[in-house]
């Protein structure tokens, strides 16, 4: 995969950049950064929990932008030589891939002391984890009452013991992990993924998959409408259904713990301030604020020692130590490797047949 070096795109972005730059210069002389996340309720929650308090503490201005898929824009901004964004909150894989392609700054962790408390696996040379969510096994409680509920991917694959209709995500990430766990691989022994074995196991369940879902909203709708009885879905989507009173539940057992991370664009206009912000964003208290506003877990485990999150709330969060140890931690490094990319390309030919 080559770095975007497209002249047409560059020209387009150059023009857009000029426009944006002329409007934002007036902001103020004080330190500022431009922070980009995915918008919606998630970005609002961060603003209250993390962004506003960080800006106040550091005395800086945080300009916000949002985009569902930042990756193509990161590529073209860096290719233009004059990026306007500083910090992006993206799926961790993009930070890694971007780092390898020279689109993302290498981090100096001596300047990010708050990250020291985070497990090694939560950070890498280019990024630091920002929040956690999980791909979990969710099910209808009408179909599977307490005591007869599926509790592992092996149960999901067991159509005799748990008859019913199923849905999986139309994407290999987390799905291959689930298939391997169903085949008996331990959650901490998944990587490097045995791709052939995973696809073989998936072929087994394929006739029983009613829908390969593409959006989080769709996964929730399928479960809520009774279109399927069992689904791999993101924990936040299922808990939103529960709050509306739907008879559905999920288990963190063998969930696949996934994260978005913060990383800084190569040649970011406010590099030094951006690094300061990164440190503040993973501050235990700011991190502990996040789950008060949305169903995502903090990335800094020290957040659980602050007392900000009540014990009953802790029990619901994907990254809470007790929940995290039941799950598999996604290796974004593997997915960013040539083997991971090859597995991703293999997916369509699998669902299509």
């Amino acid at each position: 995969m080559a770095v975007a070096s497209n002249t047409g795109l560059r020209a387009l972005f150059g023009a857009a950049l000029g426009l944006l730059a002329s409007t934002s210069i007036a902001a103020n002389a004080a330190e500022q950064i431009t922070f980009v996340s995915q918008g919606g309720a998630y970005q609002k929650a961060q603003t209250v929990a993390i962004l506003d308090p960080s800006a106040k503490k550091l005395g800086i201005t945080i300009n916000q932008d949002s985009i569902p898929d930042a990756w193509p824009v990161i590529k073209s901004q860096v290719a233009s030589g004059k990026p306007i964004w500083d910090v992006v909150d993206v799926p961790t894989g993009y930070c890694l891939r971007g780092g390898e392609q020279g689109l993302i700054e290498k981090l100096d962790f001596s300047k990010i002391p708050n990250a020291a408390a985070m497990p090694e696996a939560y950070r890498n040379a280019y990024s630091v984890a920002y929040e956690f969510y999980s791909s979990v096994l969710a099910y209808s409680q009408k179909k599977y009452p307490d005591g007869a509920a599926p509790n592992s991917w092996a149960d999901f694959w067991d159509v005799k013991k748990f008859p019913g209709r199923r849905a999986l995500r139309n994407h290999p990430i987390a799905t291959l992990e689930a298939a391997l766990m169903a085949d008996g691989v331990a959650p901490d022994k998944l990587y490097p993924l045995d791709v052939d074995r995973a696809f073989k196991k998936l072929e087994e369940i394929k006739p029983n998959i009613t829908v390969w879902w593409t959006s989080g909203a769709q996964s929730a709708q399928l479960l809520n409408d009774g279109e399927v009885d069992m689904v791999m879905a993101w924990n936040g989507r299922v808990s939103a259904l529960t709050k509306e009173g739907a008879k559905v539940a999920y288990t963190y057992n063998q969930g696949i713990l996934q994260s978005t991370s913060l990383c800084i664009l190569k040649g970011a206009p406010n590099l030094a301030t951006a690094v300061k912000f990164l440190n503040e964003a993973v501050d235990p208290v700011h991190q502990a604020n996040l789950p008060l506003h949305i169903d995502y877990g903090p990335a800094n485990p020290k957040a659980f020692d602050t007392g900000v999150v009540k014990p009953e709330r802790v029990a619901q969060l994907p990254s809470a130590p007790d929940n995290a140890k039941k799950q598999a931690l996604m290796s974004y490094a593997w997915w960013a490797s040539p083997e991971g990319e090859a597995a991703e390309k293999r997916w369509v030919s699998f669902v299509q047949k």
Partner: protein
Amino acid sequence: MLALASPALLVILLLIVLPVGWLAWQSIYHDGFTLENYRRIFSEAIYWRSFSLTFQISLLVTVLALLLGYPIAYAASVVPKGWSVLILALVILPFWTSVLVRAYAWLALLQRTGVVNQFLQYLGIIDEPLALVHNTFGTVVATVHILLPFMVLPLYATMQKIPHDLMQAGASLGGSPSHNFWRIFLPLSLPGVLAGTTLVFVLCLGFYITPELLGGGRTVMVSLLVSRNVELYDQWGAASAVGVVLLVSVLVIFLIVGRFIPLDRILGQK
């Protein structure tokens, strides 16, 4: 003449020819001249399967839209004015509703707990809900519904121009109604049939929303491959090559069809 057409030509040049040309250029030029994007399309089985599925679905949708649309257009062209306005309004009304909304409406109708399945179960016709959606069936049903106006409107435009006197003349010479229809009305309506089927077929080839929402993830039409290639290869070329191959194969089909059916004579009929 040319002067009058020039604003339209300019718009077409700026908004269609240039962007499409730029995308096509991307497919063969990325850090140098390359045919990699095309090599991939012609060597990996997924492309062949998607192209073949897309053409099959488009053909099926076109035939179904013609079978459903022809009687509607015929009715609208022979009934008194007031009724034809009502019929056309009913055809056009859904046309003003977003495709997305209509796709979701079909989901609500066709899914397991949807209206159709519940009704059939209530009547005792079926015991278990039928799999009406999240497959090719659901995709085809919704696509036919969405594309129907594109069939009915050209058909109606042609049919209302067919003089009723001709049918009466046929009748006065002893032709039965069905004879008059097959020998007089149908041949004269062929330009409309051709325009409608072409429009529906071509639009269907590029359909994205219905296979995405109602295809259950396994109805991988060409448009879905285009969006997947943008994600997988991080460059426009990998995606636009798929579009170029689709465009070229449609042109080739029309060239071949044109050899057997005198397209210009039918369409040029006044």
